[in-house]
């Protein structure tokens, strides 16, 4: 080691150099191992993509094709509304509200039809 502490200063630079020189050189086996690791990482995606992907069962596919829950909920609501309209229109067709008396009486809207047919 260079002795350069003439002014009673510790020669750090010489000591740093000594430490740098003391580092061993990494050997070839380490290089080879690192390259082997790199190759194994490169191989990983291939092995993952080569796995067969199973298709979903037919009923799941159908469920997705028809639109899933939103479609089924919409269809159910439309069905209920349809039934309700059907029942309500039947009732409306046989009810007449009398504004003066506030009474409700049942009447047949086609009551005169049979007479009309007789006149013909």
């Amino acid at each position, binding site marked *: 080691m260079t002795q350069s502490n003439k002014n009673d*200063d510790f020669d750090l630079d010489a*000591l740093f150099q000594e*430490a740098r020189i003391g580092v061993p050189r990494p050997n070839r086996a380490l290089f080879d191992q*690192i390259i082997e690791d*790199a190759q194994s990482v*490169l191989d990983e995606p291939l092995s993952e993509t080569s796995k067969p992907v199973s298709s979903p069962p037919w009923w799941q596919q159908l469920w997705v094709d028809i639109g899933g829950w939103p479609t089924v909920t919409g269809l159910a609501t439309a069905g209920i509304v349809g039934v309700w309209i059907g029942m309500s229109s039947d009732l409306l067709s046989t009810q007449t509200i009398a504004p003066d008396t506030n009474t409700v009486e049942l009447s047949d809207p086609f009551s005169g039809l049979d007479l009309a047919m007789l006149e013909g």
Partner: protein
Amino acid sequence: MSKDNFQSLDALTDDALLILFSNGSQSAAQELTRRLMPRVFAQAYHKLRNRSDAEDVTQEAFMKLWRSAKEWKQDQAKVSTWLYRVVENACIDRMRRNRSSSAIEDMVIEPADPRPSARQALQNQSRVNALYDAIDALPDRQATALRMRHLEEKSNIEIAQIMDLSVDAVESLVSRAKRTLTAQLQGQKTALGYQDDSVQ
């Protein structure tokens, strides 16, 4: 790999090589390893002072690099900067794991070799060990900056990028670290054999 291939890859940046690697080029991995492995190993060795541990950390760090290649973004940190941080953290982890076992190793007393060259080599080694001990005793940031500047011979600009500091701050850290080291080692001059050197 052919020599021509090496020469063409030589001109590419580390980032470009890593992207090439993620696209399946083993040659890019070889060039990156050839370029970065000595620095990574030296960094680990200066920190761990043990060849075997330094090799393990180097291998671990490169494995992390290969694994991160697919998601590597060119606008993120430089490969060398990223790798430096990975190695630093891996060394800290390993030092924690090794703490108990190294304490036992320290108790083993090497038999003295009477040959002058061997004695000189031992004395040199003890000086370097004293330097490493003194660096380890510094505050973390000072120790890191000093190691990069004087043991790994990085530029202040590079250190500033790695440590996310200004160049002035790096200079200040290194300067304070050197003052502390000088004061510490000054007191050990005789014990480290400097008087012996002047006599020889």
